[in-house]
C-alpha cells in the first residue's frame, strides 16, 4: 500500500509491457548504453592513472613523479592535484614546511596546457555525474512495484504513519519511498568519492561504484521503505566526511577542515539516531580520531596549546555536537509522540503519565499510600504487567488448589487490591478512623477487591518455576491465615517512611517463608489464560522482577494531587526509553526450530531474504546480493589480508621497496586498512549478538568490503603492471583488468536483476524458469 502510492515511473509504460518478460529488454537497453558512455574518458583515465601512482601519503611519490619523463602522462597528475585542491583545501600540499615549495616547483614545472586540464576536470565531474545518474536510474527503476507492503515495511511504514498522523492527514507516502530510494542512490557516489580520496585512483573509485551500482542486494534494499538505506546513507556520509577531513589535516582550523569535521559529527548523530548499528561507525571514527590525536601529540613541533586546540575541536564536533543532535531528535520524538498508543505498556507508570489519552495523564491521585486504599500494583520489569487474580483455581496437581494469582498486561477490574492491616479486618474507610499511612517495613495484607481473597504464599512449588513458592488467593472475605502477611519495603529507603504512589519502588516480603513476591515472566498454560506466572522467590536478589510500584490509587479520605508533579524529567525519559529499547532488542530471541540467519551466512551470500511473493504466480522480490560481486568481495578480503601481511612483514624486515611500490603499499595499508576496519566493525559484533539476525544486517559491512575490493584490485593490478615493467604491456594489464571487472559486474547484474526488480513465473527450481540456471546455491529460493 505504501509502495503503491509511491509511484515514480509512469505506470502506463510499465503496463504496456508483458509482465513476465518485462524487465529484460528494458534493462538490456540500459546495459547497452552503459559501456558506451564512459568509454573514452575511462580509457584515458585508466592509462593516465596507470603511469602516475601518486598516492595520498606520497609526498615523495609525487615529487618523483614530477621528475619522471612526461611521456607517462604527468599531465594528468597535475590536473588531478588541482581538482583535489579545488574540492578540499589543498591536500596536495600535505607536506609541511619547505617541502611545499619544492613540490610546488615540481608541479609548476610540469604543469600541462590549461585546455586539457579543463577537459580533465570536466571529465572527472562528468564521471561522478554518470555514476550518480546510473545509481539513481537503477534505484528508481520500477520503484512502484510491488504495490503492496513488503516485509519490514509493515513495521517501519507504520512508525512513519504514527509520526505523520499527528500533523497531517493527507497521503504523504510517495515522498517517503522516493526519499529512501534517493538516499540509497547516494551511497554509490559517496563510496566513489571515499575511495577516490583514499586511493587517489579513479579506476579504483569506478570499480567500487560499479560494484555497488550493480549489486542487486543494495538495490533491493534501497527500493523499499526501510531504515537501512537511511542508516547506510549516514554511515557512508560519516565515512566520506571523515576521510575528507583527514585529507585536510595539513590545514587545520581552515574552513573546509571545520566543515568536514562538523559534518562527520552530524552524520554520526544521524547514524546512531536511525539504528544502534550506527554505534560501529562511531567506534571507527573514534578510533581514527584517537590515532590522529596521538599522532599530533607526538609531533614535537606542535605546542601543547595547539594540541589542546585540536582536542577541543574534536570534542566539540565529534562528541558535543552529535550528542546535542541526538538528544534533540529525542526531544522532537517525545514532543511529537505525546499521545497514548499501543506502546504504553512497555513503559513505567511515570512515563505513561506524560502521554495524553493514557488514564494517568493529567490524573490526580493521593500521593501517599494509606490503609484502605484501593490500588493496582505494577511490576517494574518491562512487559510484565499488573498483579492480577481471578475466580479460577490452580488446576489439580499444580500446587495447592487455590485461586490463581498472575500478572496481566491490560487494565482490568481484577487488578485492584485493597491494602489492609494484617491483624484487623475492620473497614479502614470508616470515617470514624483517622487516616493511617502505610510505612516502609509495615506488615500488611493485600485483599483482592473483586473476590475478597488475600494474597497468599506457602511452601508449595510454583507452577512453572519449580524452585520458587506458589502464590495464591486465599481466605474468605478477607479472613485467612498467617501466610497472608507480607512486609512492604521500599527499595533504598529508611524504615518508617511513607510510600509514594508511582515513585516508590517496593518489594513484598512474605513473612512466614521470607520469600519475595515476583513475576518470573513465564507464560502460564491455557488454564492460566496465558497470563504470566507470579511466584514468591526465596532468592533475595534485587532484580526488577521482584520490584513493584503502585500505579492507580483510590482513597476518598485523602486529598488528590496532580500527577504533573511526578512527571519525569527529560533525562529520565531519555534514559528510560533507551533501557526499554535495549531490552526490547535483546528480547528478540530466536526460538528453537526457527530458521534464523547466521552471521557466517552473510558474506558468502548463503541465503537471501524473501521480500514479497512466495508462489509462482506472485510477483516475487528476493533480497540477495549479486553473487559475483559478493564472492569477489570475499576473495578480495582474503587477498587483502595476504598481500597486506606480506607488505607489512617486508617493511618490518626493512626491505627496500622501490618508491612506486612503497606508494602503492601505503595506499593498501592505510586506505585499505581503514576500510577493512570498517568492514570488521560492522560485521564481527553480530557474532556476539543473541537477538534474531537478518541478512540485511550485513549491508553496511558490505559497503565497506566493496570499497576495499575497489582499492585492492586497482592496487594489485598496478603492482602487477609495475613488476612486468614493460610500459605498454603494463598499461594493458591494468586497463584490461579493471575493464573486465567492470564488465563482469555489469553482466552479472544483467543476469540477476530480476531478483530486485521482481520476478513472475515459475520458481527457479523449475527448469522452465528464466532464472533456472542462476540458482547457483541450493539455499537460494527464488
Amino acid at each position, binding site marked *: 500500500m505504501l509502495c503503491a502510492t509511491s509511484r515514480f515511473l509512469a505506470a502506463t509504460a510499465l503496463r504496456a509491457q508483458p509482465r513476465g518478460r518485462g524487465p529484460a529488454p528494458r534493462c538490456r537497453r540500459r546495459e547497452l548504453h552503459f559501456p558506451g558512455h564512459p568509454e573514452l574518458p575511462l580509457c584515458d583515465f585508466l592509462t593516465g592513472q596507470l603511469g602516475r601512482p601518486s598516492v595520498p601519503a606520497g609526498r615523495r611519490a609525487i615529487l618523483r613523479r614530477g621528475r619522471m619523463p612526461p611521456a607517462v602522462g604527468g599531465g594528468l597528475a597535475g590536473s588531478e592535484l588541482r581538482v583535489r585542491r579545488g574540492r578540499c583545501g589543498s591536500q596536495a600540499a600535505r607536506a609541511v614546511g619547505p617541502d611545499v615549495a619544492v613540490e610546488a616547483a615540481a608541479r609548476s614545472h610540469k604543469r600541462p596546457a590549461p585546455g586539457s586540464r579543463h577537459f580533465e576536470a570536466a571529465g572527472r565531474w562528468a564521471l561522478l555525474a554518470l555514476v550518480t545518474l546510473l545509481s539513481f536510474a537503477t534505484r528508481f527503476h520500477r520503484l512502484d512495484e510491488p504495490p503492496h507492503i513488503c516485509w519490514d515495511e509493515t513495521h517501519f511504514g507504520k512508525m512513519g504513519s504514527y509520526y505523520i498522523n499527528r500533523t497531517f492527514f493527507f497521503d504523504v507516502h510517495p515522498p517517503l519511498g522516493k526519499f529512501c530510494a534517493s538516499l540509497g542512490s547516494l551511497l554509490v557516489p559517496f563510496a566513489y568519492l571515499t575511495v577516490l580520496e583514499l586511493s587517489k585512483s579513479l579506476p579504483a573509485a569506478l570499480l567500487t561504484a560499479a560494484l555497488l551500482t550493480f549489486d542487486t542486494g543494495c538495490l533491493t534494499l534501497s527500493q523499499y521503505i526501510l531504515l537501512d538505506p537511511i542508516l547506510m546513507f549516514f554511515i557512508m556520509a560519516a565515512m566520506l566526511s571523515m576521510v575528507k577531513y583527514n585529507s585536510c589535516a595539513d590545514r587545520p582550523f581552515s574552513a573546509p577542515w571545520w566543515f568536514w569535521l562538523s559534518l562527520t559529527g552530524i552524520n554520526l548523530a544521524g547514524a546512531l539516531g536511525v539504528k544502534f548499528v550506527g554505534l560501529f561507525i562511531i567506534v571507527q571514527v573514534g578510533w581514527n580520531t584517537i590515532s590522529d590525536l596521538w599522532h599530533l*601529540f*607526538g609531533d614535537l613541533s606542535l605546542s601543547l596549546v595547539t594540541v589542546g586546540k585540536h582536542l577541543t575541536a574534536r570534542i566539540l564536533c565529534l562528541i558535543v555536537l552529535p550528542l546535542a543532535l541526538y538528544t534533540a531528535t529525542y526531544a522532537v520524538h517525545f514532543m511529537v509522540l505525546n499521545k497514548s498508543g499501543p506502546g504504553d505498556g512497555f513503559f513505567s507508570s511515570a512515563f505513561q503519565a506524560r502521554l495524553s489519552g493514557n488514564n494517568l495523564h493529567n490524573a490526580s491521585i493521593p500521593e501517599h499510600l494509606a490503609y484502605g486504599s484501593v490500588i493496582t500494583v505494577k511490576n517494574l520489569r518491562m512487559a510484565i504487567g499488573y498483579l492480577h487474580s481471578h475466580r479460577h483455581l490452580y488446576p489439580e496437581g499444580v500446587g495447592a488448589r487455590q485461586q490463581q494469582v498472575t500478572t496481566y498486561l491490560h487494565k482490568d477490574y481484577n487488578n485492584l487490591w485493597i491494602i489492609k492491616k494484617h491483624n484487623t479486618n475492620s473497614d479502614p474507610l470508616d470515617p470514624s478512623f483517622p487516616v493511617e499511612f502505610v510505612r516502609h517495613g509495615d506488615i500488611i495484607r493485600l485483599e483482592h477487591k473483586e473476590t475478597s481473597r488475600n494474597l497468599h504464599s506457602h511452601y508449595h512449588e510454583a507452577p512453572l518455576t519449580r524452585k520458587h513458592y506458589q502464590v495464591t488467593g486465599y481466605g474468605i472475605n478477607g479472613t485467612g491465615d498467617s501466610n497472608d502477611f507480607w512486609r512492604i519495603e521500599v527499595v533504598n529507603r529508611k524504615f518508617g517512611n511513607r510510600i509514594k504512589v508511582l515513585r516508590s519502588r517496593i518489594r513484598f516480603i512474605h513473612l512466614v517463608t521470607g520469600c519475595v513476591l515476583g513475576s518470573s515472566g513465564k507464560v502460564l498454560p491455557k488454564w492460566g489464560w496465558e497470563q504470566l506466572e507470579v511466584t514468591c522467590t526465596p*532468592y533475595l536478589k534485587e532484580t526488577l522482577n521482584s520490584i513493584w510500584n503502585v500505579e492507580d490509587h483510590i482513597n476518598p479520605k485523602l486529598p488528590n494531587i496532580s500527577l504533573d508533579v511526578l512527571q519525569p524529567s527529560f533525562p529520565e525519559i531519555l534514559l528510560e526509553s533507551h533501557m526499554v529499547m535495549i531490552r526490547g532488542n535483546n528480547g528478540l530471541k530466536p526460538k528453537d526450530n526457527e*530458521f534464523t540467519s547466521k552471521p557466517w551466512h552473510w558474506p558468502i551470500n548463503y541465503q537471501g531474504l524473501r521480500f514479497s511473493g512466495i508462489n509462482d504466480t506472485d510477483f516475487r522480490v528476493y533480497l540477495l546480493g549479486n553473487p559475483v560481486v559478493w564472492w569477489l568481495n570475499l576473495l578480495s578480503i582474503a587477498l587483502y589480508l595476504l598481500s597486506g601481511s606480506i607488505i607489512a612483514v617486508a617493511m618490518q624486515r*626493512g626491505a627496500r621497496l622501490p618508491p612506486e611500490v612503497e606508494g602503492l603499499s601505503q595506499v593498501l595499508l592505510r586506505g585499505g586498512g581503514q576500510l577493512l576496519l570498517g568492514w570488521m566493525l560492522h560485521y564481527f559484533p553480530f557474532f556476539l549478538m543473541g537477538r534474531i539476525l537478518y541478512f540485511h544486517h550485513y549491508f553496511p559491512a558490505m559497503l565497506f568490503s566493496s570499497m576495499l575490493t575497489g582499492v585492492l584490485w586497482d592496487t594489485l593490478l598496478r603492482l602487477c603492471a609495475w613488476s612486468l615493467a614493460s610500459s605498454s604491456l603494463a598499461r594493458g594489464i591494468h586497463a584490461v583488468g579493471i575493464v573486465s571487472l567492470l564488465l563482469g559486474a555489469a553482466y552479472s547484474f544483467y543476469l540477476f536483476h530480476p531478483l530486485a526488480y521482481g520476478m513472475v513465473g515459475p520458481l527457479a527450481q523449475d527448469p522452465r524458469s528464466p532464472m533456472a540456471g542462476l540458482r547457483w546455491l541450493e539455499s537460494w529460493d527464488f
Partner: protein
Amino acid sequence: MFCWAWFLRVSPLHLQLPRWVTSFDEVYYGQYVSFYMKRLFFLDGSGPPLGHMLLALGGYLGGFDGNFLWNRIGAEYSSNVPVWSLRLLPALAGALSVPMAYQIVWELRFSHCAAMGAALLVLIENALITQARLMLLESVLIFFNLLAMLSYLKLCNSQKHRPFSLSWWFWLTLTGVACSCAVGIKYMGVFTYLLVLGVAAVHAWHLIGDRTLSNVCVLCHLLARAVALLVIPVIMYLLFFYVHLVLLCRSGPHDQIMSSAFQASLEGGLARITQGQPLEVAYGSQVTLRNVFGKPVPCWLHSHQNTYPMIYENGRGSSHQQQVTCYPFKDVNNWWIVKDPGRHQLVVNSPPRPVRHGDIVQLVHGMTTRLLNTHDVAAPLSPHSQEVSCYIDYNISMPAQNLWRLDIVNRESSTEVWKTILSEVRFVHVNTSAILKLSGAHLPDWGFRQLEVVGEKLSPGYHESMVWNVEEHRYGRSQEQKERELELHSPTQMDLSRNLSFMARFSELQWRMLTVRSDDSEHKYSSTPLDWVTLDTNIAYWLHPTTSAQIHLLGNIVIWASASLATVVYVLLLCWYLLRRRRSICDLPEDSWLRWVLAGALCAGGWAVNYLPFFLMEKTLFLYHYLPALTFQILLLPVVLQHISDHLCRSQLQRSLFSALVVAWYSCACHVFNTLRPLTYGDKSLSPGELRALRWKESWDILIRKHQ
C-alpha cells in the same frame, strides 16, 4: 615455601574434614567422578573434560568405586569415598600457585622482596584457600594459568641468551601444554591462552623487525612458536577428548541427547538394540525414525489410532484424520514400514531391494497400516504449515497424497543407498513439495501432549528439524497384519556392527557440549561481575549439620581492595608515562620501562581478559569465576608497590616510610585473614554473636542458626 603453603592450605585440619559434601559444585563434579569410575557416558556443557578427568584420577588413585549418591549438600560421605585423595589434586595445585607467584614476579625482573610479597599475598588470600581445599576446579585452572605465564616468561628470558637450547624448547613446549590444559579444564582458560598468544605475537613481531637475525633464523623462530603455541594445544585438546571417550565407553544418562550413530557406539543402551541390524534400508523394512534436531526433546515419528479433532479450540477445522506426532519415548507405535508405491506387499524381497536417494516411497504405520500423508490443511499449532496425518479415506473429495521423495542430506553420491543410523534423510512430499518437519510445539490434551509434526512448505534452507534418521531397523517378514503386530512387538536382532571415527564423535560431542542449554538460570548465591570487585557477595559452601561451623567463599577484603587500587594506579601511571614519552620525556630508563610494560601486559592484562568478558555472558555467574582474574591482580600489587618505592619515592626517608606503610598494610591483611579463618576452614564453631560480628557487609550471607 611450598611446604609452608602446603601447611597453610592443607594441614590445619586435614582435607577430609569436613567429611560432608560441601558446596553445590562438589555435588556437580562428584557425580561426574562417579560416572568416570563406572565408565558411563555423560555430557557436561560446563567445560572440556580434562578437569573432570583430573578429579576422577584422584578418585581412582584413592580407590573410589563410584558408589555414592551425589544429591544433597551436607550429606555425609560414606566410608568408600576417598575424600582426601579426591580433594588432593586441587589442594596441590592451590599450594603450588604460591611458589609460582614468587617465580613469576621474579622472572618479570622485580626484586626478591616483591616476589616474596606476591607469594605471601597469594598465600593469605582466603578465597583461594577455600576454593583449593574442596573438590573444585578453579585452583587447578589458576595453576595452569600461572604455569603458562611463568613458562612464557622463562622462554622470553632464555630467548636473549640461548635460543633453541634445550631449556628454551622445554619452556616453549610447556607454555603450549599449560595453555591447552587451562583450556581443557574450563573454557575460561581460553582467555589466558589468547593473552599469551597476543604477547607472543607482539614479541614475534619485534623478532621480525630485528635486522640482526637472518631470514632463516626468523622463520625458524616463528615456526617453532607456531608449532608450540598453536599445534600442540590443538593436539592436546583432542587428546583430552580421546581419553575421555575411551574412558566413557558405556551408555549413560545423557545418551538421548546424542545422535543415534553416537549412541550406537556406546556399550549397552542403543547399541544393544541396534547391534546386528541390517545396514541398508530396503522396501519392506520396518524402521523407527528419529528426528535429528532433538529439541525440545529427542523424539521418534509416531502415530496412533486417535484422529485430529474436527474443530480446534480456536475454531479452525482439521481433516479429522489420524494423528501423526513425534513421541519422546520408545513405543511400538513408532514403527513405520517403507513401501514401494507400485507394489502391495509389505515384506522384504530376497534379495532385499535397497531404497536410494531420490526414490519415491510410501511410509506405512505399522500398527494401523495407514499411509503417511500430508495435504493443504493447516497444521494444528503451526497454521502456516501443512497438517501431516495418516490417511483415512472418508470418501469425501480429499484424495490421498501419500508419496514422499527420499532426500538423503549427507549423501556422497546421487545414487546413495539409505542406511540405518548413518543416513540423514528428508522426506519431500511429491504433490506439494512440503518437507516433513518437527515443529517443536506440544500438542494439547487431544494429542496427548506429544510434539507436533508438520509439512513445511516454505523452507528457507536446511534445518535439522526437517532431518530424520532410521534408528531401529529390521526386514519385515510377515504379510499378515496380526503377525506383523507380533513382529513389531518383538525386539530386533541381527548381525552387523559399526563404529564412528574418533573425529566424528569428537566433533559431535564438542558441538553438543557447546549448544546444550541449561535452563535454570537462577541460584541463591549467583552474583554479577560488578559485585566481585567490591566483594559484595559470598557463597556459603557448607554448614555443619549440628554446630554452626561453616565454610564460605569469602575473600580477604584488604587484599581485594588494594589489588583493585593497584590496578587503577597502574593504569593511571601507565597513561601518564605514555603521554610523557610521546612528548619525548622519559621518566623511566628504557629497561625498567619495558619491565613495567611487560608486567602490566601480563598481570593487568590477565586480570582484564579474565574479568571483562563476564559482562557479556548471560549464564549464571558466581564469585569463584573471579578468582583467576583476582590472582593476576594480586601479582600486580607488589609490582606497583616496588615501582612506587623505586621511582616515585624521591628520598631515602620517603622510601623507609613507604616500606613501613607496606609492612603495616600487610599485617593488616594478615589480621583479616586470621579473623576470617573460621569461615575459610570451617573448623571452628562460632557463636551467633561472633558470626554477626563477622558480617562486615550487609550483603554477606553468613548462616546463623536461630535455635541453638
